């Protein structure tokens, strides 16, 4: 795709970024190793969830607790935020204008926070309907898997706020740039995990 030889997977900053381009090779590869170990964690929680599908112990099951509409809204929020982070990465790479970069990052942050708010509202609704983690094996497995993803999104949002602070204080120096590149990987990765959640947990549960 790109004319400049790439040093690592993903969007490369390119030679115009000098130090940051060199530094990102190790950082990005290391981050991928972490991301993949995280993927195994999620994969096993998915497996646990599937084995616990029958274990509702007379409590509310997926059909009663999940709503297609809210799952769809959350999916869209996360998908659009993934795209806006992509736009931020491009703004970083081509140094269009710092305002453009910050604007895309802020949009991404708002979408991420919107996702979290909606998810918390969903959990609250499940609680009022008796869907608490201690009710059954099925609900324990659900609350191990889906809120863990939510926690990851929370962490990513905090990291994004920290990076916005770094941009404001230090400007776009090498640590900030490589930080943004790693956060981009995390953000896109969380969207990939969400594909599994909405397909297997929500759509699979409602059908």
């Amino acid at each position, binding site marked *: 795709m790109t004319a400049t030889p790439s040093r690592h997977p*993903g969007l490369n900053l390119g030679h115009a970024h000098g130090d940051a381009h060199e530094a990102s090779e190790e950082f990005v590869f290391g981050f991928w190793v972490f991301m993949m170990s995280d993927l195994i964690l999620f994969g096993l929680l998915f497996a646990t969830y599937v084995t616990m599908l029958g274990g509702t112990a007379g409590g509310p099951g997926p059909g009663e607790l999940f709503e297609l509409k809210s799952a769809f809204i959350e999916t869209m929020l996360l*998908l659009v935020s993934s*795209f806006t982070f992509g736009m931020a990465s491009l703004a970083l790479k081509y140094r269009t*204008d710092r305002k453009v970069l910050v604007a895309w990052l802020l949009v991404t942050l708002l979408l991420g926070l919107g996702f979290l708010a909606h998810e918390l509202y969903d959990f609250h609704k499940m609680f009022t309907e008796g869907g608490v983690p201690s009710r059954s094996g099925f609900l324990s497995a659900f609350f191990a898997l889906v809120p863990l993803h939510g926690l990851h999104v929370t962490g990513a949002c905090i990291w994004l706020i920290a990076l916005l602070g770094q941009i404001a204080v230090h400007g776009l120096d090498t640590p900030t740039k490589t930080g943004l590149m790693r956060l981009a990987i995390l953000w896109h990765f969380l969207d*990939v995990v969400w*594909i599994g959640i909405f397909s297997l947990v929500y759509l699979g549960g409602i059908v």
Partner: protein
Amino acid sequence: MSHRQLSEQEAQEKSSELRTYLWGFGLALVLTLIPFGLAAYTQTAARTLYIVIAVCAVIQVVVHFRFFLHITLARNKREDLQLILFTVLILTIMVGGTLWILFNLYYRMMPAMLP
């Protein structure tokens, strides 16, 4: 940050990378809307629907890796592709093994747990 003038090559690269994100977003959108639409508005048989959901999910994961995370089959990025493929291998063994053992156990000991 200084507003940098892009060279012709960079401008080309930029537009091709922008296209990559737009394609990824469009494809992901379609692959999300298909299963949600079928589940919400049609009376498709459950079995067919499960297959459609699974196929769309797998394709969408590939789309995200290809267009958002930029994992390609290019030679200079092979280590990372190998890292991902190795993770998939580990996942297949551990997840497949878990499901195999537990569902076999349910079949023999706890038929009530079977779907």
